[in-house]
C-alpha cells in the first residue's frame, strides 16, 4: 500500500516547497489538484491565472459534478506505481472527502503569516498576474470561491507545519515528521 501525503495550506504558504522536498529526498511523485486544470488551460491556449483556473474549475464541476477533479486525481493516484505519493493543493471539502477514502492517506497543513505569504507570492513566478498584486488584492483573493474553504480543510489535519522561518527550519521539520 503506497503512502500518500496530502498538502493543504493558503496561497504561498510553502506547499510546493514541501512537495518538492518530499519528492526529491524521499523519492515521491507529486500530484496536484491544479494539474488537470493547468493541462486544459494549456490546450485552450489560455494563461494560467488564478482567475482562469478558478473559473474553469467552477464551470466544469457545475456541469460534471462537484467531485469531478477529485475523482480524476484519485483515479490517477490509483494507477500510480510509486510507493510514496504527494497530493498537493487540496482546497475543497469534497476534495478532502475523496482523498480520505484512499488507504494510506495523511493530511499535512502548511501555515505562514499573511504578510510573509504575500511577500513570497509577489516574488515567485508560479501564476500569471501574481507579481502585480497589492496586499489588499491578495487578501481579497483568499476570500474567493476557490480559496475560502482551505482553512476548513486544514482544520482536519493533525499535523501542522509552521513555515514562517527559513528553508532549513522547514526541511528539519519535514525530516522529523518523516522519521516518526
Amino acid at each position, binding site marked *: 500500500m503506497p503512502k500518500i501525503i496530502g498538502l493543504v495550506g493558503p496561497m504561498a504558504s510553502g506547499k510546493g516547497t514541501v512537495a518538492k522536498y518530499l519528492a526529491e529526498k524521499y523519492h515521491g511523485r507529486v500530484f496536484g489538484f491544479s494539474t488537470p486544470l493547468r493541462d486544459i488551460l494549456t490546450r485552450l*491556449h*489560455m494563461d494560467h491565472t488564478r482567475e482562469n483556473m478558478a473559473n474553469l474549475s467552477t464551470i466544469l464541476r457545475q*456541469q460534471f459534478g462537484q467531485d469531478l477533479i477529485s*475523482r480524476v486525481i484519485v483515479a490517477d493516484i490509483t494507477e500510480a506505481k510509486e510507493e510514496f505519493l504527494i497530493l498537493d493543493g487540496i482546497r475543497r471539502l469534497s476534495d478532502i472527502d475523496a482523498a480520505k477514502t484512499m488507504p494510506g492517506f495523511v493530511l499535512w497543513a502548511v501555515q505562514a503569516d499573511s504578510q510573509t505569504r504575500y511577500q513570497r507570492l509577489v516574488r515567485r513566478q508560479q501564476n500569471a498576474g501574481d507579481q502585480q498584486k497589492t496586499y489588499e488584492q491578495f487578501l481579497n483573493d483568499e476570500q474567493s470561491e476557490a480559496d475560502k474553504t482551505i482553512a476548513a480543510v486544514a482544520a482536519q489535519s493533525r499535523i501542522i507545519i509552521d513555515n514562517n522561518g527559513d528553508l532549513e527550519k522547514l526541511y528539519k521539520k519535514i525530516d522529523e515528521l518523516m522519521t516518526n
Partner: protein
Amino acid sequence: MPKIIGLVGEKGAGKGTVSDYLTKYYGAEHFGSSDILKRTVSDLNLPLTRDNFIKLALVLKEGFGATVVMDALIEDIESEAKGDLIIADGIRMLDDLKPFKEKYGATFTLVYVTADVRLRYERSAKRQEKVGEGEMTFEQFLAEERRLTELSIHEVGRQADFILNNDGEQQDLEKQIQDMMEKIL
C-alpha cells in the same frame, strides 16, 4: 498564405471521409475541435461520448466566451500547421464560424457535407466512432437531431461556399470533392 477548409456537417454525413480524402490526395492537414474536446474529456476521466463533448463545449463557451474552442483551434493551426492546405473540422455554430472568417478572410472556404438522415443513421450505427453510437435506435437518432446543438449545423450549412451531397456512393462524393478542389486551388 495557406488555404483553410472549414468542415460542417451532421452526424454521419461523411466529414471524416471528406477529410481523409483531402488528406490523402491533396496533402491537407487535419485540425479538429473534437480533438481538443476529446483530450479534455479523457483527461477528466469521463466517457468519450458525443454528449460529453457537447456539454464540455457549452460550459467552456459559457465560462470563457463563445469562441474559446475555435480560438484554441486557430492557435493550434497557427503554431503547428506546415502545409498550404488545412482542414478545420468540427464547426457547428455560427459563433464557431466568425473567428475563421475574421482571421482568414477569403482564404477560408466553408464546406457543408450532408446526407439523408436515414443513411446517416445507418452509417453512424456501423462505424461506432463514439461510445454508445452502435446501440442507438433510429428514433433516438432522430431525437438527438432535434437538439439545438444539432439544428445549428443546418444553419451554418446554409452559409457554406460548397455543399457536398453524400447520398450516393463513395465515388460520387470523391467526384464532388475533385470538382470543388479545382475551384478552391
